[in-house]
């Protein structure tokens, strides 16, 4: 799209933007943040009041400890989810696959892989459009390896997972997840690029003529529209995952209250070398239940499972998914899919062992 066409509707539409509107939105945001913080910071007091005060349970009781876990964790995680999903929705309103494609087209490899992974995190992407996106990328000069960096990072770094890790494990684990996820996407994409596997892409992909017409108006969005997109993201994502989150926290609460301390140390602890590959293998066929799995895993960690094993498990659950591979099979030949799984799986394995050794 020529920049000329792009500017015209924006100029026509957004001429008048009264300053009063800005103040209004700012006040609404501030009020919402203040209200949110007030509720968020009183959850812990409320939970202990409810369980040990109103219900009159004694502190050493197993049931009490399970209920207290649930009553505290569920509103906390749901509230974090609201804020982060809303925020990510707004950030994503600044990016479109089209703009990302333009940023990535013709990039040199190393830098392209870094950029591709980062854009994979912030570009709105649904795995059901993986195929048109893949073709749109590779036929317009985005290198195959860079495209893979994007495709690996997009599902692997998931805002719901990030929230759950932050809420249940703290910011350090959340940052580790974000950082290592990005590094895996960068390196795996770079390796796939170096292997020159273009021959394992289905032939018709490169035969597809690139877009003859440019698509979609890219009018400038107003802040009201961006807020609306954030709200839509909350409705869409939180509306879908909340039952899994609650179910996961409930199971976690059960483990928290009833599974004896250190039982997991022998199965998922640092000493068990096979726990990392096992976690990766179990994780691959599981899909989209990341929201429900993390609270369970948190409880396991509490009982002696090792952090690296837990991270590896989570990454393979959300980063390598069977449905996405089936979708990608349309454009990739089997050996390339196998290479993709192998390279990413290996990366996750290394991360798992690394954290078990370092921490």
């Amino acid at each position, binding site marked *: 799209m020529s920049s000329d066409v792009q500017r015209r509707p924006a100029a026509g539409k957004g001429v008048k933007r009264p300053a009063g509107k800005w103040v209004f939105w700012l006040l609404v945001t501030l009020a919402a943040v203040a209200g949110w913080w007030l509720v968020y910071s009183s959850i812990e007091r409320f939970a202990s009041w409810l369980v040990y005060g109103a219900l009159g349970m004694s502190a050493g009781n197993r049931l009490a400890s399970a209920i207290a876990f649930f009553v505290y964790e569920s509103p906390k995680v749901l509230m974090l989810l609201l804020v982060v999903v809303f925020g990510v929705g707004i950030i994503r309103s600044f990016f*479109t*696959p*089209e703009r990302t*494609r333009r940023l990535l087209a013709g990039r040199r490899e190393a830098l392209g892989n870094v950029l591709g992974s980062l854009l994979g995190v912030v570009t*709105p*992407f*649904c795995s*059901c*459009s993986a*195929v*048109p*996106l893949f*073709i*749109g*990328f590779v*036929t317009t000069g985005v290198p195959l390896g860079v495209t893979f960096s994007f495709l690996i990072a997009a599902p692997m770094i998931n805002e719901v997972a990030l929230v759950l890790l932050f809420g249940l494990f703290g910011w350090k684990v959340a940052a580790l997840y974000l950082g290592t996820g990005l590094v895996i996407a960068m390196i795996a994409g770079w390796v796939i690029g170096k292997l020159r596997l273009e021959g394992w892409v289905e032939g*018709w992909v490169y035969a*597809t*003529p*690139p*877009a*003859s*017409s*440019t*698509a*979609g*108006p890219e009018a400038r969005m107003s802040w009201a529209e961006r807020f609306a997109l954030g709200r839509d993201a909350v409705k869409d994502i939180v509306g879908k995952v909340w039952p899994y989150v609650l179910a996961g926290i409930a199971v976690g609460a059960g483990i928290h209250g009833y599974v004896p301390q250190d039982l997991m140390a022998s199965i998922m602890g640092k000493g068990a070398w096979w726990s990392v590959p096992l976690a990766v293998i179990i994780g691959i066929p599981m899909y989209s239940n990341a929201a429900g799995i993390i609270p369970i895993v948190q409880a396991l960690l509490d009982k002696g499972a090792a952090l690296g094993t837990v991270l590896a498990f989570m990454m393979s659950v959300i980063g390598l998914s069977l449905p996405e591979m089936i*979708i990608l099979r*349309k454009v990739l030949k089997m050996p390339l899919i196998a290479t993709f799984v192998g390279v990413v799986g290996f990366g996750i394995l290394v991360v798992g062992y690394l954290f078990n050794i370092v921490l």
Partner: protein
Amino acid sequence: MKIEVLGTGCAKCMSVEQNVKKALAELAVQAEVEKVTDIQQMIQRGVMSTPALVIDGKVVFQGKNPTVDQLKHFIQGT
């Protein structure tokens, strides 16, 4: 008027198709609604994220699942 819904067959794409028909019925507008699942056709039109809506050959949005009311605006060209 010719309306094409471009999609790979995911839940969102079907919802767009249904909502388009609903919007047309509510507006009492006659239009030909066609579902396009061929990926090469999508690429030809420069569409990389689905669902996308094409009205009379022009892509009006992609990668969205608008409400019936929003679809009415697209159909009426406002």
